[in-house]
C-alpha cells in the first residue's frame, strides 16, 4: 500500500510444523477465548486513553480559537462604542481600516516585483513564466530540500495567482465526465511533508489527476508559505484541474494568531509585509466551494439551515477579506468611517461574550448611523432599537421607498446575509442531534444536524457533502447517515502520532475511496500502545501548562472550598474547582491520576492543594521577571498579547513603540477587565530592557516569555513505553 500507509506488519506465515504434542481442542478454545477477551478489553482501555488525550488537545485548541474571536470582537466593540478621541479606539481603528486602502488598480502598480533583484549568490529555485511542469517540479524539489524561494519570484507568482483567481466563480463546477478520478484533500496546515507524501502516492496534479484542496493550507505548521506556493504553482499550470477552496484560516486575522504571519515575516524580512498584503487579497479571492457532477458539494467548514448556494454563487466574495469581520458599509459618505455592522444587543461589557454567539446566528442587527460627533443626533436615541425599527428609520431619513435598490439599509441587510453565508461555510461543524445552533465552542458558524444536511442537500439536489475543518483520528469520518464526510490531510496534527491524514479518490460513480497516511517514519512504526502513550504524555504536558498559567485563580477557587484553611480539599472539590477555572470541559476525575501524584493526596480521597499547585511550577520563563504575578498574567494571555502586537504592527515591521506597547496593555486589561498599573508596565519594560531605540521587537519579547520545562518535569513523568 505504498509508504507508511498502515502500521500493520506483513508477516510471512510459515506452515505450522510444530512437534507432536498438540493441544486438546477444547482447551485451545478456552485459552483463545480468554486471550481474546482480555486483549479486547485492553484495546478498549487504550482507546479510552486515546480519546481522553484527543479531548484534551481539542478543547485546548478550540478554547484558544474562541479566545481569539472574543478578543477580536472586543476590538469591534471598542470601535463601535468609543469616540475617535479615545486613544484605544485609534489604536484599533487602523486594524479595521487598513486592508481596503488599496484599490485593485493601485495594486497592479504597487506590487512591483520587477524592481526586486535576484542576486547571483541566490542558490534557490528560479521561476520562469509562463510556468512549465519541469519548473514546478523543480520548485517542489527545492522545498523538499528546505530551500527558500526568492521574494521576487514569490511576488510574481502571487501576482499571477491573484489575476487568475479573480476570473473564477465563487463555486467551481467540475465533472468526472472524462472518466477521471478526482482527488480531494483536506486541511494541510503547513504540513509540507504531508502534501509531498500525497503527491508521492497519488501523483502530481495534472489534467489526468485533478485535485480539490479544501482549505486551511496555512497556520500551525511551519511550512505554510511553501504549501501555498506549490498549490498556486499547480493552479497556474492547470487552472482547470486544480481547485482551491477557501478555509477559515485563509484569513489574515486568524493568521496573526496561529503562526502564518509570523512565518512569513520570519522567512521574508524585507518583503514579508508586501507578501502578506498580497495574500490578504488572494485569500479573499479564493473560491468558496466546489461541486462535482452537480452531486457532490465540497467546502471547508460546513453548512447551516440558512445555506443557499444561489446566494453564495452571486455574492462578491472578495469583499469579505476576513470572515471574522462584517463588511464596512457601502455607499457611505466620506465622513462616515468604518462603522462595522454590529450584530449585538447591549452596551454592556459582557458584550464580549455575547458577540461570540452573535457572530454567527440571527440575533437582531443594530445599525449605528455614523454621525459626526457634534451632530444633533445623540447617542442615546439609538439604543434598544430593533432591526426593523432601525431600517424603517433610516429609510425614512433617506426618503427612500422600501424596494429601492440604492437603499443603504437594505444593502446592509444583504451584506449581513451574505456574511453569514460565508461564515457558516467556513466555520461550521456537524453535530449528531437535529437542529442548527450557534457554534459557541469555536466562536463562529453553526453546529448543524442530520436533518439540516438532508434538507439543504435535498434542496440543492446534492447527494454528498465533503468538508474538512475538524481533525479526525483516521483522517476521515462519515456522519449524518453517510451524507457528510470529513476529510483531513494533516497527519500528526496535535502531536506526533496523534492521527493519520487521508485523501479521497472520487470517480464517476461518486463513491469515495480513501487513502490514509502518516508522515514521519518513526510514528508509523510505533504500535498502538506506544503512540497512545506518547501522545498522552504530550497532552498531559500541555494540560499542565494550562493549569500552571491559572495558578492564582486555582488557589483562589480551592480556598473557596476550604474555609478553615486546612490546606486540604476533597478530590471532588478539586475537580469542580479546576473545571470552573479552566472551563475546558474535561473529565478531571479521570485525569486526576495523571495530574496528581501520590505525594499530594492521601488514601481518603483528599488533596493537599498548595503542594499540588507548587508541583505544577516545573515550568519557568526563560527570563527572570521580578513581578511573578505579572509574569503569570503575561504567560496566560501571551497568545492574545501576540495577536494584539501583530495587529498593531500594521506595517509588519516586527517592531512596536513603547507607547504602543503601553497601550496594548491598556487594551488587554480592559478586555480582561483587569487592573494593570502603569508602574507594573514600566517595571516590566525595565526588566526586558528595550530602551535602546524606544521600540520593541515583538519576536524577542515573546521569546522572553517562552516557557522552559525544568528537567525535573521529565523525571517526574511516568516512564515512557519504550
Amino acid at each position, binding site marked *: 500500500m505504498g509508504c507508511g500507509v498502515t502500521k*500493520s*506488519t506483513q*508477516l510471512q506465515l510459515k506452515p505450522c510444523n510444530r512437534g507432536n504434542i498438540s493441544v486438546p481442542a477444547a482447551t485451545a478454545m478456552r485459552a483463545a477465548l*480468554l486471550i481474546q477477551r482480555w486483549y479486547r478489553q*485492553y484495546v478498549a482501555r487504550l*482507546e*479510552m486513553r486515546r480519546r481522553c488525550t484527543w479531548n484534551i488537545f481539542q478543547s485546548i485548541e478550540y478554547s484558544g480559537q474562541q479566545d481569539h474571536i472574543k478578543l477580536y470582537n472586543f476590538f469591534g466593540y471598542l470601535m463601535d462604542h468609543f469616540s475617535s478621541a479615545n486613544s484605544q479606539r485609534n489604536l484599533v481603528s487602523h486594524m479595521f481600516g487598513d486592508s481596503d486602502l488599496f484599490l485593485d488598480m493601485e495594486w497592479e502598480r504597487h506590487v512591483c516585483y520587477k524592481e526586486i533583484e535576484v542576486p547571483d549568490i541566490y542558490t534557490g529555485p528560479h521561476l520562469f513564466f509562463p510556468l512549465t511542469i519541469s519548473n514546478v517540479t523543480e520548485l517542489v524539489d527545492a522545498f523538499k530540500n528546505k530551500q527558500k524561494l526568492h521574494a521576487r519570484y514569490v511576488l510574481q507568482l502571487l501576482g499571477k495567482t491573484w489575476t487568475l483567481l479573480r476570473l473564477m466563480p465563487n463555486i467551481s463546477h467540475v465533472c468526472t465526465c472524462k472518466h477521471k478520478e478526482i482527488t480531494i484533500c483536506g486541511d494541510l496546515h503547513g504540513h509540507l511533508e504531508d502534501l509531498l507524501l500525497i503527491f508521492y502516492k497519488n501523483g502530481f496534479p495534472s489534467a489526468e489527476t485533478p485535485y480539490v484542496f479544501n482549505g486551511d493550507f496555512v497556520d500551525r505548521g511551519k511550512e505554510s508559505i511553501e504549501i501555498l506556493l506549490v498549490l498556486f504553482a499547480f493552479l497556474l499550470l492547470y487552472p482547470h484541474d486544480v481547485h482551491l477552496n477557501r478555509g477559515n484560516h485563509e484569513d489574515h486575522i486568524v493568521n496573526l494568531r496561529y503562526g502564518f504571519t509570523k512565518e512569513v515575516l520570519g522567512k521574508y524580512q524585507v518583503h514579508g509585509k508586501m507578501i502578506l498584503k498580497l495574500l490578504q487579497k488572494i485569500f479573499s479571492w479564493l473560491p468558496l466551494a466546489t461541486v462535482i457532477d452537480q452531486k457532490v458539494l465540497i467546502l471547508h467548514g460546513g453548512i447551516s439551515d440558512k445555506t443557499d448556494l444561489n446566494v453564495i454563487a452571486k455574492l462578491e466574495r472578495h469583499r469579505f477579506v476576513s470572515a471574522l469581520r462584517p463588511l464596512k458599509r457601502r455607499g457611505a459618505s466620506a465622513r462616515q468611517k468604518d462603522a462595522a455592522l454590529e450584530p449585538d444587543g447591549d452596551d454592556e461589557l459582557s458584550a464580549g461574550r455575547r458577540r461570540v454567539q452573535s457572530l454567527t446566528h440571527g440575533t437582531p442587527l443594530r445599525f449605528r448611523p455614523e454621525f459626526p460627533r457634534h451632530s444633533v443626533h445623540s447617542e442615546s436615541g439609538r439604543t434598544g432599537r430593533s432591526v426593523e425599527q432601525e431600517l424603517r428609520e433610516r429609510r425614512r431619513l433617506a426618503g427612500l421607498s422600501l424596494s429601492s435598490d440604492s437603499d443603504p439599509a437594505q444593502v446592509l441587510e444583504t451584506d449581513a446575509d451574505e456574511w453569514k453565508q460565508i461564515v457558516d461555510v467556513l466555520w461550521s461543524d456537524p453535530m*449528531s*442531534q437535529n437542529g442548527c445552533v450557534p457554534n459557541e465552542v469555536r466562536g463562529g458558524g453553526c453546529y448543524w444536524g442530520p436533518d439540516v444536511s438532508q434538507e439543504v442537500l435535498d434542496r440543492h439536489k446534492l447527494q454528498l457533502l465533503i468538508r474538512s475543518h475538524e481533525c479526525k483520528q483516521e483522517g476521515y469520518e462519515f456522519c449524518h447517515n453517510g451524507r457528510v464526510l470529513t476529510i483531513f490531510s494533516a497527519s500528526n496534527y496535535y502531536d506526533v502520532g496523534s492521527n493519520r491524514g487521508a485523501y479521497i479518490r472520487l470517480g464517476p460513480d461518486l463513491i469515495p475511496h480513501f487513502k490514509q497516511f502518516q508522515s514521519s517514519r518513526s510514528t508509523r512504526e510505533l*504500535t498502538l500502545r506506544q503512540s497512545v502513550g506518547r501522545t498522552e504524555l504530550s497532552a498531559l504536558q500541555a494540560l499542565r501548562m494550562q493549569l500552571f498559567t491559572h495558578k492564582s485563580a486555582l488557589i483562589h477557587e480551592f480556598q473557596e472550598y476550604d474555609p478553615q484553611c486546612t490546606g486540604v480539599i476533597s478530590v471532588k472539590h478539586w475537580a469542580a474547582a479546576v473545571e470552573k477555572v479552566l472551563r475546558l470541559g474535561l473529565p478531571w476525575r479521570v485525569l486526576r491520576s495523571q495530574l496528581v501524584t501520590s505525594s499530594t493526596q492521601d488514601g481518603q480521597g483528599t488533596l493537599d492543594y498548595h503542594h499540588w499547585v507548587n508541583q505544577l511550577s516545573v515550568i519557568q520563563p526563560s527570563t527572570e521577571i521580578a513581578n511573578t504575578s505579572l509574569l503569570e498574567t503575561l504567560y496566560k494571555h501571551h497568545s492574545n498579547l501576540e495577536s494584539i502586537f501583530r495587529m498593531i504592527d500594521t506595517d509588519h515591521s516586527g517592531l512596536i513603540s513603547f507607547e504602543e506597547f503601553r497601550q496594548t496593555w491598556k487594551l488587554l486589561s480592559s478586555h480582561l477587565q483587569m487592573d494593570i498599573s502603569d508602574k507594573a508596565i514600566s517595571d516590566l519594560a525595565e526588566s526586558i530592557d528595550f530602551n535602546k531605540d524606544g521600540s520593541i521587537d515583538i519576536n524577542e519579547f515573546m521569546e522572553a516569555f517562552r516557557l522552559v520545562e525544568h528537567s525535573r518535569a521529565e523525571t517526574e513523568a511516568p516512564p515512557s513505553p519504550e
Partner: protein
Amino acid sequence: MKYEQEEQVMSGLSGDARRVKSLCFVKFAEILLLESIITETQKRISNAFDVFDHECNKTVDVREIGTIILSLGCFPSEAELHDIIAELEDEEPAGFVRYEKFLPTMTKILLEHKFRPITEDLLLQAFKVLDPQKNGHLEPEELTKYLTQEGESFTQEEIDEMLSAAVDPDKNVILYKDFVSMMTFDDTR
C-alpha cells in the same frame, strides 16, 4: 444523635437483644459502605460516559458503548457484549445510547462483578496452555491460527495489531511471559 439513642437502648437490653442490635449496626455500616461504593462506581461510569459524549447531551454513539463498557474494567465476551448493547438501545434504535439507561445497567454489571477480570496469572496460564512443549515462546503463525480460528475470532486488524506489539523483532517469536508483563504494566498507570 441516633447513635446515642441506640447506646441508651442497648444498655438496657438483654444479651440476645444486644447481639441482634450489633448485627444491625454492622448492617448499617455495610449499607453506608455500599452506598459509597455505589456512588464511586457511578462516578466512574459517568466519567467514562462523558469522554464519549461529544455533544455534552448525555448520549453516546452506540458504536462506542463497547469501548466504554470494557474500559470500566469488565471482561465480557463478544456475545455478552452484544446482549448488553441490545438491552441498552432504545425501542427504535436511533444509533445512540442515553445515559439514563446506561447508568443503571452498568452499575448493576459492575457491582455484581458480572464479568470477572482476567488477571495477569490467568492470562499467562492461557498462553502456557498453548505452549504444551513449554518452549517459553509461541510462533506468530501458531498464535494467529488459534486467535483467528478459535473462540470469538480476531479480525485481521486485531491480530496484526497484537502481533506488532507481541512479536520479538529479533527472534520473530512471541515471548509471552514478557508480553504479558508489559501489557499488564499499563494497568498501573
